[in-house]
């Protein structure tokens, strides 16, 4: 790459990106199933919590905003409570909701997942996937045409819910800016006039009939799309296989995935097209845009639970490769992530402690904890709570350093701080499938046990490893004793 990561990422800032597409409200309803209904032989889910997130084109715009681009979001929601929630979420992501039109004739698109005991049970989709009505279409075409010369790139984020009609696509292609399409369905012909397209492997295969599991197949698919639709470039996202790209003049490339582990590919496509659009708006060549998009997508799929990346994270990833620092989360971030994993049926293990001077006992207990489930979350006492528990002079290392050390462990998946003396409030926030405490807690009573057990989880008392403690280490250092003493 000709420039350093910092400069490259800085060039993405303040680019004006118009995002036009289907807006979706993602809902997560979480609960327990304490009984069978007296009315019918079906489970009764007792709701414990509910979250909402802006999805679809709104998530693409959030990705643009996160990289300090200037997104302009244009879409439609219903005149309902879900529409108001969607707008709130859009604004919370740093995107203006002023381009969202309300169509009383259709409901806001909602996908509601019902989750119980760490498992998804049902998804209820609410949508009206017919084309928007003529009058609304005309108003939106006029709305788009007013933006001629005022945007640096255009993204069409198509979820096949009826917004992107041919007249809207034509209007978007008449704004004098590069048009990028995240397509849906088999018929890519309808995107004629756009400059680039970013199907995933399955979409490219469905549209062309080429086997996109191989590079040759991707090449054939891209060539066919370039020729058939008159595109300038095609980018095929291939999940764990990385990204393949090809331009109309025959240049091509293959960027292998940069993520070490793929945790969750949800939303990676949104990140790819957002970064590509910013890069194209900054007049970067496609190869560099793909490089940036690949790095950003790698962060999103690897890093836990985040749907978008910041400029600093992206620059850092470009400069130093992938850093385990991304495992350090806020408490809210850890909670959100834990719920997402639970929704996928993965068992989150939670443990907590001070972890001041790391020693072999810590390693053993963390590895043991990790073996009890699929992912290990570690809640770390902040400095004030360590001081209350262990006395003045502790901790030796500040919270940020203690968390950074833990994040480097392969067996640790997420690290976050807490400030209370006990994890009483942390346990319900994370709602782990497994809570691990040292066996010395057997008689003291494990804080959070009743919550975990009431929600279908288990408490595991880990065997104690004798002879290791931070306090012992500090004393030995103070007394000038070596390991053999």
């Amino acid at each position, binding site marked *: 790459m000709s420039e350093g990561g910092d400069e490259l990422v800085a060039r993405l800032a303040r680019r004006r990106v118009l995002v036009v597409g289907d807006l979706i409200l993602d809902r997560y309803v979480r609960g327990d199933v304490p009984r069978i209904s007296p009315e019918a032989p079906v489970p009764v889910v007792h709701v414990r919590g509910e979250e909402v997130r802006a999805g679809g084109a709104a998530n693409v715009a959030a990705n643009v905003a996160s990289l300090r681009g200037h997104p302009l979001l244009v879409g439609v929601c219903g005149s309902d409570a879900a529409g108001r929630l969607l707008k709130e979420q859009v604004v919370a992501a740093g995107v203006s909701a002023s381009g969202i039109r309300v169509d009383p004739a259709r409901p806001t698109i909602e996908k509601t997942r019902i989750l119980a005991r760490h498992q998804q049970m049902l998804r*209820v989709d609410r949508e009206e996937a017919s084309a928007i009505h003529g009058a609304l279409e005309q108003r939106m075409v006029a709305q788009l045409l007013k933006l001629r010369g005022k945007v640096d790139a255009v993204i069409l984020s198509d979820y096949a819910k009826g917004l992107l009609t041919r007249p809207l696509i034509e209007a978007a292609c008449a704004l004098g800016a590069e048009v990028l399409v995240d397509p849906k369905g088999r018929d890519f012909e309808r995107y004629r006039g756009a400059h680039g397209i970013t199907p995933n492997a399955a979409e490219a295969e469905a549209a062309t009939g080429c086997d996109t599991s191989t590079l040759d197949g991707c090449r054939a698919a891209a060539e066919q799309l370039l020729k058939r639709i008159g595109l300038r470039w095609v980018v095929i996202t291939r999940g764990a296989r990385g990204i393949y790209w090809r331009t109309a003049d025959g240049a091509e490339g293959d960027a292998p995935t940069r993520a070490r582990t793929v945790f969750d590919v949800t939303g990676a496509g949104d990140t790819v097209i957002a970064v590509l659009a910013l890069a194209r708006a900054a007049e970067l060549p496609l190869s560099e845009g793909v490089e940036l998009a690949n790095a950003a997508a790698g962060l999103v799929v690897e890093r836990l639970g985040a749907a978008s990346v910041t400029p600093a994270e992206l620059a850092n990833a470009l400069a130093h490769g992938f850093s385990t620092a991304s495992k350090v989360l806020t408490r809210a971030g850890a909670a959100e992530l834990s719920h997402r994993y639970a929704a996928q049926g993965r068992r989150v293990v939670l443990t907590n402690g001070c972890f001041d001077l790391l020693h072999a006992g810590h390693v053993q207990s963390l590895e043991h904890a990790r073996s009890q489930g699929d992912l290990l979350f570690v809640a770390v006492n902040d400095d004030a709570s360590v001081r209350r528990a262990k006395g003045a002079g502790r901790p030796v290392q500040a919270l940020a350093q203690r968390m950074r050390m833990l994040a480097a462990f392969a067996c640790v998946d997420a690290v976050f701080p807490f400030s209370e003396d006990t994890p009483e409030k942390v346990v319900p926030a994370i709602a782990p499938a497994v809570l691990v405490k040292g066996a010395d807690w057997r008689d003291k009573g494990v804080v959070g046990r009743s919550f975990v057990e009431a929600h279908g989880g288990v408490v595991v008392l880990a065997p104690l490893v004798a002879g290791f403690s931070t306090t012992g280490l500090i004393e030995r250092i103070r007394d000038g004793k070596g390991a053999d003493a």
Partner: protein
Amino acid sequence: MSPLAHWLDKMHGLTIGVVGDVIADVYLYTRPARLSREAPVLVVHYEREEVIPGGAANTARNLAAFGVHVQMVAEVGSDSAGDRVIEMLGAAGVDPGAILRRPERPTVTKTRILAGDPHRTKQQLFRIDREPRRGEARPREQETIARLEVVDRSVQAFLVSDYDYDLLTPAVIDWLRRKAKSKPVIVDSRHRLPAFSGVTVITPNEEEAEETAGLKIEAGSDALAVGRALLQRLGVGAVLLTRGKHGMVLFAQGQEPLEFGIVGTGEVVDVSGAGDTVVAAFSAARLAGASLREAAWISNCAASVVVMKVGAATCSQQELRDVLARAPAPFGQA
């Protein structure tokens, strides 16, 4: 015309206060679409939903259907379920003006997700319950009591519909028990009948009565023992024990128990909400001047109408008149 029908005419002039827990009964109609790509679960597509006022609101609706003027002392959340319940109550002729909106807690909601292809009977998949968590929001009992005192000036009786949520705190229950010394207080309570000792009438179902009496009902004679036990132990004026397909039994102080079989063919469609209809019809008839046994028979007839309807339903005056005409009371005129 049934000799009991004239009590129905007198229901029109009555005003009854309904105190209790409002529930929004939501029916979400969907059609199955496919399996999800996110997890091996069914994706269903939303078609439409119905919100029906349930709990105390269903009791109020039942009273209104008999022409009784209803003043409610109740509360709902500041959410769309609360909006719908208030709207539906208004449409049913219940004055919803005295319902307190509480932004700090959700409306109690029971959502049935029903799925099926168009033109086929839909099958229930899940029920999703939203309830305020214990201690989530502090009960506003002083406001409740203040409103009870205002309503007290214009009502002839109180009907309590207790689902054991957060409206009826011990202080509110105490107020109602004291009120029972001067005005009829008729109580339909889940899970905590003993708290209502000394009220005018209670209308438990078998499960509630068994729980309170500590006895199982297996035969009809058990039902008599359970009812007698409740009558003595709780010191109430009367117990109307509803027994599902076995009808109902009336127990009154100083009288022999009176058993009533169900009216009609017994082709029961849906029993949900039948208890609400019973307590509403019984209260309205009694306040209109009917004797205990007449009121019990009228409520038995009203129940036979609503169990033939899907969901928590109401019985109109005309429907009740028709049943009374077909089903003569199993006792002579008092």
